């Protein structure tokens, strides 16, 4: 047990490189999931039934297929389409498609939570559709979706660990490399200590975000009529 701590201190640089990759991957994914989520979530409130059905089809597909399958499909499938992808962009793309689906559900809920009279009043005043969204619906939806997006970020950080399977040196992979190295060089197997430590680090980051999400939900919930709940962690 004692050598575990020494090993972690000794390998701190590698762990930090891994942590940076994890956070970078999460940041990229959060950004693209938000953009995709806003676009799709808004389209999901469109008048046209066809548009709504198409969005629902997209959302259901990416939420129902295991994320690991989506990422492997992109990573191994891309070369067959003649566009080989590096591990990092492949994982970022897979996570974004999945995160976008979850984001779309949140945004759709947020827009639908805005009282109906708001849209009707805006229409009666002769505002164009894009202005109704930009000036009336999105600003009010923002309050409702903030806690859910904070929760989604925790899920995204957790799911970046899948990068380890296709060769992104993120936090989990960094831990794996340390275990491999000490097994080969020193003949010890610190898997229990290292993976335990990796679990604790993920736990510290994600529990702060989960806590923030719950707090936001309570605070904003008092002010506005509805807040949208964060997607369940079992959605991973």
């Amino acid at each position, binding site marked *: 047990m004692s050598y575990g701590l020494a090993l972690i201190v000794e390998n701190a640089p590698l762990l930090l490189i891994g942590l940076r990759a994890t956070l970078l991957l999460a940041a990229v994914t959060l950004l693209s999931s938000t953009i995709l989520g806003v676009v799709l979530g808004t389209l999901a409130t469109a008048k046209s039934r066809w548009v709504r059905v198409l969005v629902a089809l997209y959302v259901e597909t990416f939420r129902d297929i295991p994320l690991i399958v989506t990422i492997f499909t992109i990573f*191994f499938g891309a070369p*067959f389409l003649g566009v080989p992808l590096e591990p990092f962009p492949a994982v970022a793309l897979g996570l974004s498609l999945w995160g976008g689906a979850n984001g779309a559900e949140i945004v759709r809920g947020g827009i639908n939570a805005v009282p109906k009279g708001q849209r009707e009043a805006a229409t009666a005043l002769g505002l164009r559709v894009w202005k109704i969204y930009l000036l009336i619906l999105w600003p009010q939806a923002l309050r409702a979706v903030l806690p859910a997006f904070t929760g989604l970020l925790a899920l995204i950080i957790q799911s970046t660990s899948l990068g380890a399977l296709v060769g992104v040196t993120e936090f989990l992979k960094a831990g794996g490399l340390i275990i491999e190295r000490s097994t080969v060089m020193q003949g010890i197997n*610190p898997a*229990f200590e290292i993976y335990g430590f990796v679990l604790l680090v993920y736990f510290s980051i994600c*529990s702060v975000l*989960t806590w923030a999400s719950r707090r936001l939900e309570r605070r904003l919930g008092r002010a506005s009529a509805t807040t949208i709940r964060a997607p369940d*962690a079992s959605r991973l």
Partner: protein
Amino acid sequence: MEFDIGYLVQQMPALRAGFLLTIQISAIAMVLSVLIGLFGASMRVMRVPVLSQVFAAYVEFIRNTPLLVQLFFVFFGLPAIGLTLSLFWSGVLALTLWAGAFQTENVRGGLAAVAPGLREAARALGLTRGQYLRKIGLPLAVRTGLPSMLNTCVSLVKNSAYVSAIGLRDLAGVAFDRIASDFRAFEMLAVLLVGYLVLVLSLSAAVRVIEHHLQRPFRA
């Protein structure tokens, strides 16, 4: 490269075995995790000292750590301190612990929704806490909590694909293996998409039927 149906037919036995393994692992983990959920939620709601806190911490820990890391911890970490499980049971254990946390929350939500008067009445009639839970609390909690419990089951089936990461030959494992060895990406990815969608959608359909059935006493 063209989509080769012949290749797919040829690989059917392996894929069927993988599909069955996926169902087998999910089914075992499903049953065990529901048992954890029933027990954990009872401890939480009855505020049993120590166990209540242990389950609260367990739920928080599982929810805030990645399933893949949990799986690696069980499969690589536990043997390092002398707790060696087979590949199959490592996968089952990790999935069970993961889903058990969510089932605990689901059942707890159901138990919390049981009218407090029922518990007071049970106490007035001299029922023990265990009797209350067995005869009144849990049957009602499972009814209200069933939709979310079944949703967790759907997620469990989906996430059973993670066990391919430790080398189990479930549906995902077989398909990834064939992509790596035979370069048959299109065929195998099609199998994966169809396979998991069939599993998830049929379970979701079952969820709707059961929900509909449960609502029967409350419909006019």
